[in-house]
């Protein structure tokens, strides 16, 4: 167990900057998830932490040690790969003990550790099988077992669940979380799945284009995204964005969207103050699908929106609705029993209390007042 500090770290591949000025301070025992679209540099960052790649600039500190120039085997780190990377010609037991053999751990100690880990992960009956004789979920467990026997200072996971089917993925997700609760290890976990990120993490690092967009706890990431990218990436279905004119004067500001005669107007009510500096200009409003509601029982500032139903998609627990306002196509998530007909015009209420506003130039979220 240890704290990991990544300080102004850059990575260049030729002229391509894969990572730009990464600064992360990960606490002892914390479960941190790196999330971002494919190619944003998550695996690169993980490889750098593991010592499989060198930094082009910057320093890494693990526990009390500066590990920047240490090789992978000297860092006391364990890693679980997306492909599991089990050695195909070795049995499960040999897979698990290979690292200990290399570190010349005495046979007796190896036996004991293998037994402990096998019991913990319930892979005892599999120890003498080859990886090719295991199911996806079992391979996943073995890969975790191989990492656990090291008793490392830091665990790294690179999209460990993305090769499992949906049901198993949810089960393993829960197990990993339980395991973390029980062992209390520091974990850096990479995924492109924002639900995994939300459910597993103590804190989330959202990355894009090799740059950290935001490093915060899941609630903050979801409710107060640092910018439009984070807001759009986290949450499914995605947040609806509308670029709107800011009109009016103090205490009476409205957002207006006009197109071909159609108009959407949103009086800001209680939230007018934050947008005062933008009067006469534009802002991007970001409304999550659940920010549209049907009835006005909730408190908050509800703005009526007249919507023409385009597509109704029942998902089981909810109804997903694609609807048209002016010439915009937006998405709402509504209670399951709500099943309007297509092309029907309905009245939705937008809960202004929770929507976000972004500066259209910088895409940064305008802070609440």
């Amino acid at each position, binding site marked *: 167990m240890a704290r990991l500090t990544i300080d102004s770290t850059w990575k260049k591949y030729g002229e391509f900057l894969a990572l730009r000025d990464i600064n992360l301070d990960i606490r002892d025992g914390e479960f941190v998830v790196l999330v971002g679209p494919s190619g944003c540099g998550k695996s690169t960052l993980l*490889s750098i932490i*593991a*010592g*499989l790649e060198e930094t082009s600039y910057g320093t890494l500190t693990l526990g009390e040690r500066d590990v920047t120039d240490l*090789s*992978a*085997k000297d860092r006391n*780190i*364990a*890693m679980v*790969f*997306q*492909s599991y*990377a089990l*050695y*195909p*010609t*070795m049995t499960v037991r040999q897979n698990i003990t*290979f*690292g200990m053999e*290399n*570190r010349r751990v005495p046979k007796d100690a190896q036996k004991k550790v293998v037994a402990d880990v096998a019991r913990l992960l319930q892979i005892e009956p599999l120890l003498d099988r080859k990886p090719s004789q295991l199911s996806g979920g079992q391979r996943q467990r073995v890969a975790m077992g*191989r990492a656990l026997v090291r008793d490392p200072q830091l665990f790294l996971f690179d999209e460990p669940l993305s090769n499992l089917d949906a049901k198993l993925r949810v089960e393993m997700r829960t197990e990993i979380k339980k395991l973390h609760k029980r062992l209390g290890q520091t974990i850096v976990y990479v995924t492109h799945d924002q639900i995994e990120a939300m459910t597993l993490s103590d804190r989330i690092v959202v990355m894009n284009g090799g740059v950290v967009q935001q490093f915060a706890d899941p609630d903050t990431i979801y409710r107060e995204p640092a910018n439009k990218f984070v807001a759009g990436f986290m949450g499914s279905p995605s947040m609806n964005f509308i670029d709107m004119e800011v009109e009016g004067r103090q205490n009476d500001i409205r957002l207006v969207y006009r197109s071909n005669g159609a108009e959407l107007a949103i009086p800001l009510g209680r939230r007018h103050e934050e947008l005062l500096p933008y009067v006469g200009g534009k802002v991007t409003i970001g409304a999550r699908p659940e920010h549209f509601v049907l009835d006005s029982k909730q408190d908050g500032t509800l703005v009526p929106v007249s919507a023409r139903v385009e597509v109704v998609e029942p998902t089981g627990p909810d109804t997903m609705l694609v609807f048209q306002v002016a010439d915009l196509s937006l998405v709402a998530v509504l209670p399951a029993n709500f099943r309007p007909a297509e092309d029907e015009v309905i009245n939705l209420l937008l809960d202004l209390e929770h929507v976000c506003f972004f500066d259209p130039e910088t895409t940064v979220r305008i802070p609440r007042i």
Partner: protein
Amino acid sequence: MPDTDTLPDFNRKKPFNPRRFATRVAVYSILIVVGLFTIMPLAVILLNSLRFNADILRESFIGWPTRITLENWDVAWSSACINASCTGVKPYFIASMLMVVPATLISTAIGLVNGFALTKWKMPFASVVFVAITIGVFLPPQVVLLPWAIALSWLGLSKSLAGLALVHIIQGTCFTTLFCRNYLVNLPDDLIKAARIDGAGFFRTFWKIVVPLSPPIIIVTIIWQFTFIWNEFLFAVTFSSSDFRPITAALMSLNADDTGVSEYGFGSAAVLIAAIPPLLIYFFGGRYFVRGLTQGAVK
């Protein structure tokens, strides 16, 4: 619920299609003719090795044996004359074996290490080295003949078994490296990364992870190298002498006896003896050869 207890008729016959049938007949006829042409030389030699030389000369070179004898094989193996020493091909066969087996194994081993280093280890200038090695594959052997002659005399290995083996090891390494590189490039990088995190260095990763995954390509390379070196003629003639002569070089002198009579009978037997090792290798390894060439490292 569908009814899955009564089975349908699985043995339905496809209706007869005359056009398809005609195409089949045509294709098979062509294949049979081509096949016969291919097998003909081998068949002629095999039959001649069982005929008396007098019969071959009297009747015809291509012909069915009227009388059968195994004497040719005996003569070819142990008493036929080559350059005035009448020992048969036996010593040359043994010399070839002693040269070919180590050359094959060593060049295969080097190729595998090279392939690993070129694909899975951060080797400086890996792509340049690989291009250089590939050029070696396409270089005509005549070009390197003279440089090798000079190099071998410097090393004091001129016209010796070790010298010829060395030539084949180094020439062959281009091929074995190419084969092994192309096979190992498909080995998942994650395996090597996992091994690094597990604390394994270059040779330990090679020995414990790469080699156990490589039997298909090892077999391919061994078959290729063995047949190539065994059958090779140019280097064998150039870098051999009466002290050491591989069987391909020896066969050339077999027919030249002072009587001027062509010895087709034991000549055929000698040729067949020389062809046995590669034939056996193909016979037992051919399946693996095809499989190894088409198969990736890890599915």
